[in-house]
Structure formats: structure tokens, C-alpha cells
């Protein structure tokens, strides 16, 4: 089993590990970094439960190998929560009950932050389009769309 030593800045902290070269990023985050907030739903890049931020870009944690993240800066749901970046979204998700089982939620937050931080508007159709890479099997999506709209409207309110 071939391994490689890597160093990744995860949520502001350096994580060094010797990882099997076939290990994907989300397994590295969950297993080597002990951050189980990023979830594994399909392992083929469709469901979005493993979505994280890598060097500022929204990335599927199951479609990137851990060794590809060597030297990168990765932020997970735990990092978003600790830094307060997801605080407004978390409040809106709570108020709207935009989560039920919560398994898709970390990935949904990462995608929503990507939309909001790039200047996305409170256009329901555009938000639905943007989060179509994140499956939610519980809510029916409407409350998630409303929560994201709430945050954008709060930010843009005069």
C-alpha cells in the first residue's frame, strides 16, 4: 500500500499525515484530521454531502485525493462554524427548519457560502440552480432556499 506524507492547513491548523495515495480528501478529513462534519454520501461526486472549501474554491471532498491537497488550505463545516462565517446561515437554517436529518447540511452550507460570498442574489431560481449539486432527501429544498434568501437579504438590507 503506497503512502505519501502530506501537510494540509485544515481550518487554520496544520495537519501532517502519511496517507495511502488512494485516500480521498473527505476520508482524510474524517479519518486523519478527525473532522467528521464532512459527510460521505455517494463517493462519486453527485450528492454534495462532502462539499468543502479548498484554497477558496468549493470542492467535492470525494473527487479529490488527499495527496492533491498537499500544501492546500481546506475549510470544513467545523471551520465555518468556529470562525463565524456560517453563523448567519446557521441562524437562518434554524429559523426556517432548513434541515431535518442534517446529513446533507454541512455540504449544503459550503455550497451556500460559495453562492453568497461570490455575490449571489436572492433569486430563488438561481439559488435552486446553485444548490442542485447538493441532494437533500428530507426537506423538499424550499426551506433551504428561503434560508439562503434570508441571509442575502439581511446582508444587502440598507
Amino acid at each position, binding site marked *: 500500500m503506497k503512502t505519501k506524507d502530506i501537510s494540509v492547513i485544515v481550518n487554520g491548523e496544520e495537519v501532517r499525515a502519511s496517507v495511502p495515495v488512494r485516500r480521498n480528501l473527505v476520508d482524510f478529513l474524517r479519518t486523519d484530521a478527525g473532522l467528521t462534519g464532512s459527510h460521505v454520501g455517494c463517493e462519486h461526486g453527485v450528492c454534495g*454531502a462532502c462539499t468543502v472549501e479548498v484554497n477558496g474554491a468549493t470542492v467535492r471532498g470525494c473527487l479529490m485525493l488527499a495527496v492533491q491537497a498537499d500544501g492546500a488550505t481546506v475549510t470544513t463545516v467545523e471551520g465555518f462554524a468556529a470562525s463565524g462565517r456560517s453563523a448567519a446561515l446557521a441562524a437562518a437554517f434554524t429559523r426556517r427548519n432548513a434541515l431535518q436529518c442534517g446529513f446533507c447540511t454541512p455540504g449544503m452550507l459550503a455550497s451556500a457560502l460559495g453562492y453568497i460570498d461570490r455575490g449571489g442574489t436572492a433569486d430563488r431560481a438561481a439559488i435552486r440552480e446553485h444548490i442542485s449539486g447538493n441532494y437533500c432527501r428530507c426537506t*423538499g429544498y424550499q426551506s433551504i432556499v428561503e434560508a439562503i434568501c434570508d441571509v442575502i437579504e439581511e446582508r444587502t438590507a440598507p
Partner: protein
Amino acid sequence: MTGPATIFDRPNRYIGQPTPRADAARLLAGRGRFVDDIQLPRMVHAAFHRSPHAHARIVSVDVTAARAASGVLGVWTGAEMAALVTPYVGVLTHMAGLRSAPQHPLAVDVARWQGEPLVMIVARSRAEAEDAAELVEVDYEELPPACDATTALAKDAAVIHADFGSNLAWERKVDVGDIDAAFAQPGVQIVEREFRFGRHTGVTLESRGTVCEFDPSEGCLTMHYSGQAPHMMQVILSRLMSLPEENVRVISNDVGGSFGIKIHTYGDELAAAVAARALGRPVKFVADRMESFLTDIHARDHVVKARMGVTASGTIVGIDMHDLTGIGPFSMYPRTSAIECNQVLNLTGAPYTMQHYRAHGQVVFQNKNLMCQYRAVGHPIAMAVADGLLEDAARVIGMDPVELRRRNLMADDSYPRSSTAGMKLDDLSHQAALKKLCEIMDYDGLRAEQARLREQGIFRGIGFVSMVEVTNPSPMFYGIGGAPIASQDGATVRLDAGGALHVSSSITEQGQGTNGILAQIAAGVFGVDIDRVKVTTGDTGTVPYGGGTWASRGAGIGGEAMLLAAQALKEQVLDVAAVMLQSEPGLLDIRGGAVVDAATGAERMGLADLARTVYYRGNELPSDLKPELIATRHYRVTDFPFVFTNGAMAAHVEVDPETGFVKVLHFWAVEDCGRVINPMLVDEQVRGGVVQGIGGALYEECLYSDDGQLLNATMADYMVPMAAEMPEITVAHIETPTKTSFLGAKGAGEAGTGGAPAAILNAVNDALQPMGATIWQMPMTPERILKVLGKV
């Protein structure tokens, strides 16, 4: 039922309020506790060799190379596993005639569906276990498969269990009135259709999984279980592994969606428990997505031939139907795979006053994955058949489908009564729900718009469903048939020294908000701020004994138990307070965390003062006063087999005749689930249910080849509804509390899934009507729409 009169109008009530769930904060911070998040010392991982064939004799199994592979700690073949586990058979005594063959965790002599586990490998890592699984060599002799349910009973069909002589698992006939005579009456017009409902599955975003630990020093097994019924699993593990029940503990923390998928006995999970006992170290098995598609129970798979008779003036005289259901090679243990068909027979036409009903259901074995209870068991079939025929009949007699419903729905003041099939009904509101639905959707306006747009070549359709939902099941559902499934639930409420409540309940949380409503009920009924209530569910080691959350029973049964327990504790506390305050219990109340004067609301004593006195300074109390400050109550439904809810729903769709695509423009649901404990949570249950119903109606299907190979076992190929294609869903309520409990809550979790497919079907057919086409097969894919339009 009578009860304390002040619960619903107390100043600090929570019942009825859209209170946010306390659990949300943890899940939003990435601090969920799902099974795959568990990391235990010395934990090892299981993977499986699974049958690549739908039907094959296992000639030989060679695990030599697998045993020798790097990191491997244990390998079990089907025969080795069978020696350690009592076989199980998915039958219930009240389902007369139901038969199924003994099942083993791993196939022994014959593999009967593609994906059936044959060999388990346990290794240091999942990757190493999978590597070793690839080294398992099995010599298969392929057998002719019986995959198509419609030919499974043919004389030349391969018989899956030779002893049975045929692939028939169960059948039931219902015959009420005289359908042949009724249909032969002059003026009765008959509509006849063949409905096909494809197989789909739950696609819980968190796949099935377990971590099992065994402590040989105490002989105790702990299963960390992603599922809905911990006490049921406790009994099953005890029986099948020959362990004393008390030595099995089942714990469900966060469950990433379940929808009925995670409430059954799966061989791979059982095998993981056996491995944990054999190795004396924790074993984790988490299904990957392909394993989920191949082995999570599938749903539906019906072919229904049905006729409805209707008079020119719009009286539905009856329904005559035949339902054929394919359930895979076994009936699932312990709930069985015949309940779905049974529900179809029980529920078809249940909202209507028709006098005649004849139904024949047949449940057949086939070489596909097992079919069993998934959200809204049988309901989508029953509702689509009855309401599909109703709207078809409306077209034939030239009557508006809403008007035809009005003339046939049971009157809201006609309860209690029975349905034509003999279901006991009470507290329903079909007429009021339909009226409210038409108001909130602006039915007349939509019809006018539809006519206008049709002139422009835009084909929009409006479709309805009036439905019932089976909720709050009594012991008549499973217990009567010998299943180890509790029909009652318990709740415990404890006042702690600091004045907070710790409550526990045997119902479980899979995202519905179970823990939230338990806190609402306890806080409101007892009289503390909801922030001062902590909730424990999902652990057989600590919670009262009960059934769990399924069949839309959590709020109605578990919620009532919590109400009764909170009221009992309140009475106990007031008795203590009366002694301490030299007052009378009837003159006191508990509000906002304090004992108050009931008349004025003036605080007499904080709950912490009272509790600390009881716990720390009992010497201050009279010696004959022995307060416990804890109360447990259990509740079961006694007067009815089930408590039915009703609803009315409508879909607005647009069909593109060039591409066959269906766009759902809007969906409306009016639901009567009795007393609404938390309108926000109920609305989201309805919306999520509707979306799963839309999935079954338009997108989701487990596609099999003729020889039983699942063709779309990936998330990319199996179409789960996504945000962009889902409509906005308007939800409204009628509240007719059930008289079977003081709380008055009925279930709400399955209505959307049960009703939406019928409404979508009717809307699509309404849109297709000007083109002279109709469709009766779900999912209604673009290809199938183009086919009925004669374009492919």
C-alpha cells in the same frame, strides 16, 4: 378522551408553536453523531463479496487468498455464518397464508438477487477489506431468474423456493357488495386502466451502517444503529444471535434519513454483529452507495388492473381491482413484504362513499432485491388508482374532477364510520380539506389560465388527490401477528435538582424533529422554559420501552406518552409544593420554572428550591412525604387499529410535448393531522414527503435488465429530485384532533409521499388530454410521455 383541561391554553404553552429544534445547532456546526463518525479503539471494518448474479447456485467458495490478504482479520462464508445465526423468516401470523423461506445473513447454497452478500471480510481498514473481497473466488452456476413480477406466476417461470411449488408469497381477496351487478346497472359507465408503478428506493443520504462492539467479559453486545426501532433490533439481535435480551444494547444517535429503509433486518449488519462477537473488537460496516442501491429495501413494484363504475350524475358505484406486487426473493424480516399490498387493498377508495369494492392482491417472489415498507406504505398506489380512475371517469362523464369528488367524498359530519373496505374511520375532514385546497390554489383562476395557454400551444394540467393516511398504529398492525415490535411508547420526565427537566422517550429521531416536539410537550405541559428541557432518545439502555418512530406514529403515540408523563410529574410536584407551602395542589400551578399561585400567577417557589429541598434536605419534609420527582407513562391506541388522517392535494404541471418533460409548477397540500404540535416541522414533513412522492411519480426508478441486473445503481444514474426541478409547495391545515388521545395529534410524515404521485399523475393526464393521450405508468419519464404521444 378526557384529561387536564389547561394544557392547551396555558400561558407558557409550546404545543402549536413553530419552535425551532434544539438539535439544529449541533448539526449546523458539523457536530452530528452519525454511525460512520464513530471511531473506537481497535475498531475494524467489514466488506462483502456479493452475488453478481440474480439467481445462481453457489458451487464453491474459495476464500484462501482473501484470508491471507494484507490486514485481514476474519473471513466468513455463508455456511460459516449460518452456523452462528438462527435463520429468520419474514412472516406474520395475522397475514394468513403468507410464506417466505428461511434467510441467512450471507447466502449459503443459492444466491437469489444481485447484491446478496455471500462472504464477509473484516480487515484493519475498509479499503483492505474491499481489496480482500476481490480475492474471493466463487464458482457460480447460473440459474434461470424469475425477475418480472408479471410472469413470476407463469407455469414455466423459474420457482425461487422449490418447496413452495410457485412464486406466490401471499394473496388476499376483498369483496364488498356486488361489484358485477353494480357495474351492470343501466347508466353506469366503466373506466378501466392498467397502472404500473416502478421500483424505487429511499436513497437515505446517510447510507445504512452499524458499529458493533462485544464485551466478552460481560457477554454484552452494543450495536450503534442507524435506524428507527432500537428495541425491535434489540430483540432481533438477541433471538438470532442467542444472546439474552438484556445483554444487547442498541443505540441510535443521529440518523441521516431513514424513510422506512432502516427498519428491517439486513444480513450485512447482522454479520457485522457476529464478527464483533467473534473478534472481540468493534466492527464497522457502512454500506457504500452501490451497496445501498443493491440491498436497501426497494419500494412499490406494482401492476394494478382496475375499473371504476360511475353514473352520469357522478356517483361512484365501486372499484374492482387486481394488484400484483413483486417483493424480491424473500419477505423481509420481521415486518414482512406483504404489508404494502395489504395496505393497497385496505386503502383504495377509502375517502369515498362507494358501496361496492372488490380487490385481489397477489404478492410474488422474484429475483430482484427485496421490496418492503418505505414511506407511505401502499398509499401512493391506492391513491393513484382510486383518484386516477376518478379523474378518468370525470373526463368520461364530462364533470369537473373537483365536483365529482365533492359528490363522493364522505361528509365531514358522518363519522365515526367505516370505509367500503371496512377500515374504521373517525375525525376526518375530506370536504373541508378539498374546499380549502381550491381556495388557496385559486382553482377557478388556474383553470381559466390553463384554457388561455392551451390556445398558445402550452399544455398545462391540474390534478388532485383526496387521500387518507394510516397513522398511530395500534397493536393490530404488527404485535398481533407475532412481530417483536412494540405498539406502545413510553416517556419519562425527571425534575433535576437545578429545576431543569430531563426527559426520555422510546420514539426516535431521524430528522423529523422528534426531540423538538418532545421538549415542546414536556415544557408546555409541565411548565418550564423549553431551554431547560434535555431530551434523550434512541438508546435501549436508558429510554422507556417502545416502538420507535415509523408509520407516522412518533408524535401521536410518543407525544401522548410525554404529555401524560409531564402531567403526572406536574401533579406530583404540586403535591410536594402544597405541603412545603402549606397550600392546596389545586391552588397552585407551575409556570416559567416556578410554582405559582394559580389564580394570580405570583411566584411561590422556584422549581430548583423545591427540587434541592427534596434531593438534598429531605429532613425538612414530613417523613410520610416521599417524592420521586420522576414520572413515566406509556400510551397505546386502543379504540382503533389505526388513526386515519386525511388530506387534499393538487399539482400544477406543464408538459412539453416536444421533449416529454414535465415541469411541476406548483404543489398545494391541505393536511389534517389533528392537533399540530409544531406547524413549522409539520409543514416541512409534508414538503419533504411531497418531494419524495414527486420523485416516484416523475424520476426515480430502479431499472433492472431482464436477467436481474440493476442498471442504475449510482446517484448519477438514479434520479433523485434536485432543488432546481422542485416546485414551491404551499401547505395548509385543517385541525380535527383525534379523540383517541388527549393530545389529539395524528401522524403527518407520510401524507406527502402517499398523495403526491396521484396528484402529479392526474395533472399530467389533464395536460395530455387535448392531445388525446393518457399515461398510467410511473415514473412518468420523458420517454414514456413521448411514447403515449406516439412520438417514439
